[in-house]
Structures are given as structure tokens and as C-alpha cells.
């Protein structure tokens, strides 16, 4: 399931939702936070392209489900104004086995970072995309 929202999310609650009775062998979750990025600004703003964002995230989930034997997948991404230490993004995966869960979680956040139409603005400066993020995503796409 995917959600784009302004409000915060509760990792413990999301973790519980990933559990499937008797079949879950492992859960891997990633949460991304706003770190202290500048002496001059203490907030960032996240803009997105509504509709396309949902469409891209749904494709990322579907592709992960194709590549690995997963039980549940969850993506939450916040938009709007965020402060240092705020949670930005949540990716959670449950599976019968840990390896599939680790790989799928990493895949989903790596592809999200390079394909989902979100843009971060630190204070009044738009953040530049990183080549290193593209390299990581390309590695997955070649597999």
C-alpha cells in the first residue's frame, strides 16, 4: 500500500500492519529523516507531482513483488514543510525469509529516490539530484 501525506507516521503501527499471522518470517523497515543540512535553514519543503507520484510508487511496489517472494509492502512519503529530525519516508517489507525482505526494502527506497516525482527544497534552495543515487538505482535496474 502507498500513501502520500502531510502528517507524520508511526513506525510501530506500520510495523504491526506488515505482520501476517503465522507466515511472516522477517520484516525490514527503512525510515528516512530530515538531517541537519545547513546553518542557514532549519526546514525543508517537499513538493510532488500528484497522481504521477502514486502511479510510480505503485509500479515500484509491483516490481518488488515480482522480484522477491514478499507478503506485505508499504511506502509512505510525506510532503509539505518538514523540520530537522522529522520523518520523511517509510518503506516496509514483510516476507517469509529475511533476504527477500532486505533486498526488496533496499530496492524500493533506491528506485523511489530516482524515479518518484518528489523535489526537496532546503530553505529557498532546491536540492540537486545526486549521481550516486542514480548509480545505485542503475545497479538494480541492470539485475
Amino acid at each position, binding site marked *: 500500500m502507498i500513501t502520500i501525506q502531510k502528517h507524520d507516521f508511526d513506525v510501530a503501527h506500520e510495523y504491526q500492519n506488515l505482520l501476517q499471522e503465522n507466515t511472516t518470517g522477517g520484516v525490514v523497515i527503512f525510515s528516512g529523516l530530515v538531517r541537519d543540512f545547513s546553518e542557514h535553514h532549519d526546514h525543508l519543503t517537499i*513538493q510532488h*507531482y500528484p497522481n504521477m507520484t502514486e*502511479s510510480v510508487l505503485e509500479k515500484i511496489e509491483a516490481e518488488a513483488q515480482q522480484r522477491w517472494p514478499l507478503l506485505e509492502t508499504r511506502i509512505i512519503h510525506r510532503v509539505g514543510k518538514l523540520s530537522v529530525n522529522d520523518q520523511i519516508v517509510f518503506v516496509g517489507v514483510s516476507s517469509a525469509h529475511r533476504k527477500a525482505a532486505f533486498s526488496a526494502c533496499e530496492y524500493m527506497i533506491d528506485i523511489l529516490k530516482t524515479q518518484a516525482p*518528489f*523535489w*526537496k527544497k532546503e530553505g529557498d534552495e*532546491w536540492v540537486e*539530484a545526486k549521481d550516486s543515487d542514480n548509480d545505485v538505482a542503475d545497479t538494480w535496474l541492470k539485475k
Partner: protein
Amino acid sequence: MDNEINILYFASLAESLGRDDEKFELQTPSIISSLQLKEQLATRGPEWKILLAPSTRCSVNLVISSDDTEIKPGDEVAFFPPVTGG
């Protein structure tokens, strides 16, 4: 009016072009490629040349397009810089 497409601009691109969206009338023939649209818009002035930059992304109906993707009346086209979410 029947030949209109909707164009959206996001993030730094919207700021440098001074707009978030616009209605755009396609000339006849009313089906053009993504590259042709970019070239038409780029004639508006120097700041519009950014649409032709390799780093500028273009989507047609919510899917990332290539230069030969067809655009027809009623389509939603968007231009934006490389994404930085997550």
C-alpha cells in the same frame, strides 16, 4: 479548444519559467512528438531552452516520455528537474 493539452511545470523549473501550468494549443497536425513540443516552447525565450537540456524530465500522461513519445489533444504533459525525494 479541441487541440489543447495541459502542461505542468514543477520545482526549480516552475520557478525559472514563472509558471506552474498552462493550456497549450497544438497546431495542426495535432499529434506531435515530445521533442517537437519542447522545440516549440523553447522558441519563447532563452529561459525556455532549459526544456531541451538532457537533465530535464518530461512525462506524458504520468509516464516518463522519450523524445519520440506522441502528444495528442487532451494529454497532460509535465516538465521537471531530476527528482530528489526519499
